[in-house]
């Protein structure tokens, strides 16, 4: 075998050096990306926004939605804002979303990070209003109900429901938010008269639970009844197989023990 060419040696050493620098830089860069692009659960996005991870990947940070907003609701995130740098978000206590029927912000998005085909603005889910009963005036027994009256999805997203008051024959009337209708526009948060808003719009994932498939609320009309002893299984089928419409754990009725 021939003696190694010193130029070749030099070249290989230089290449190895370059690769090492690129790998170091790449690792730091990758760590930064993983940190900064993690889901920011505090950020309220414009209407029609994709899920947080997809939104981060497709928002080009051009600010066209910000310029399209006639109320200056939207802004691009600065350093240490609630959203990753340069992405659009809004803070309802400052300026809420006034739910333009034409949704100009979503339609201005060139990349589809906001759904340009969004139809009715009432289908938008920017966030979910949450009432703090410890500080809400209505919950103290006052007839405030400002949030109910400013709500643009009136009577659906927030209702005022009677609630018994301790040791009193009189009821209090409290605001109750319904997640199936609340768009997260934040008009309630903006209008709330307490010093710090007692109704806040947050990302639903921060406050919303999930019951789970295995619970059966058999008394509710929208849920299928659980198979019970009152309805005897057909004589031929043994053991009884639970109907497919009611998934869940039903081993106690299945016979044959655990």
């Amino acid at each position, binding site marked *: 075998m021939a003696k190694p060419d010193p130029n070749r040696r030099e070249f290989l050493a230089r290449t190895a050096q*370059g690769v090492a620098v*690129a790998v170091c*830089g*790449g690792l730091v*860069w*990758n760590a*930064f*990306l*993983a940190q*900064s*692009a993690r889901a920011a659960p505090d950020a309220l996005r414009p209407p029609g926004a994709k899920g947080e*991870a*997809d939104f*981060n*990947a*497709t928002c*080009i*940070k*051009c*600010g*066209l939605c*910000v*310029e*399209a907003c006639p109320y200056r609701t939207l*802004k*691009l*995130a*600065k*350093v240490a*804002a609630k959203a*990753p*740098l*340069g992405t659009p978000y809004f803070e309802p206590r400052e300026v809420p979303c006034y739910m333009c029927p034409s949704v100009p912000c979503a339609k*201005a*998005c*060139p*990349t*589809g990070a906001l759904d*340009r085909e969004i139809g009715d603005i009432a289908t938008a889910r920017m966030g979910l209003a949450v009432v703090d009963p410890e500080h809400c005036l209505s919950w103290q027994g006052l007839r405030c109900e400002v949030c109910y009256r400013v709500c643009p999805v009136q009577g659906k997203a927030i209702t005022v429901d009677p609630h018994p008051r301790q040791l009193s024959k009189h009821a209090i009337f409290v605001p109750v938010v319904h997640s199936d209708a609340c768009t997260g526009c934040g008009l309630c948060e903006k209008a709330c008269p307490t010093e710090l808003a007692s109704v806040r719009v947050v990302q639903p994932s921060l406050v919303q639970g999930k019951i789970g498939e295995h619970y059966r609320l058999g008394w509710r009309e929208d849920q299928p009844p659980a198979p019970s002893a009152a309805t005897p299984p057909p004589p031929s089928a043994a053991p009884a197989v639970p109907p497919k419409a009611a998934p869940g754990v039903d081993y106690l009725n299945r016979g044959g023990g655990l």
Partner: protein
Amino acid sequence: MNAPGNAAVARAAKPVRHFEMPRTFGGRLWFLRYTLGRRATQLSILIAFFGTAHWGWTVAGEPLLAGNLSAAKIAGAIPMADPFAVLQMLAARHWLATEVLVGAAVVLALYLVLGGRTFCGWVCPMSIVTDAAEWTRARLGLRADVLHVTPAARYVALALTLALSAAAGIAAFEWVSPIAMLHRELIFGAGLGLTAAVGVFAFDLAIVRRGWCGHVCPLGAFWALVGRAGQVAVKYDAASCTRCGDCVKACPEPRVLNFGTLAEAGRVPSGECLNCGKCIAVCPESSLRFGLRATGRIDEHI
């Protein structure tokens, strides 16, 4: 036509003259014509974006120039988008709406005509910062670099950008780009832009000469690759050139000015050329000038 032969004859016959800065104001203004043109272009694009965002500038009832250099819309009709940003998002395996794809194609087509790094020299706001660093370097007489970085590092940065976009699932350079930060801050007042500008200035001033634009920036690398097919180019006349080297001293990317390859191609053959015109303004023999690549050599039609 035997251009290199002619050049050899011309060199033998012609004494080498160096560039001298004109003493008159008009002469100096003429010397700075490309620099002033670049600043005017950079600033007017910036002002058009700013005016549309803050003062509601319109044309025919539509916003004049909405958005920023990442994605924009002219007169509510013509979409534009940064093809490199779009490429990163596609590398991150996210399909995008048609508008941004059309916009990227529009910008790509524009720079295929103008020559790729025309963006860097004439549009990118960061080149104002790096030119200022270079100017300061010259005034302070700073020569030494703290680090040695090869100008080819930018292509590694480009490859790394696409690899990390695929790995992290987000547009890797867009999330750290000091250019985007600076431009966003100038238009929308949104964060870190000044910090980014100061960082790039310091890097260019002290660590690597022409460090950001000439060595590291993956966006510049992207445009350099596109620029190989660019149509506007600095044309070279080997017959009148005395090889005084003043152009090489003035050039921010001196690698692109190699007299051998210049004479062979009749133009600056590299995509890394910014089309900034500094070499043209400084050439004492007027051997360099802007021209269309397709129109052949200067010496052929003189």
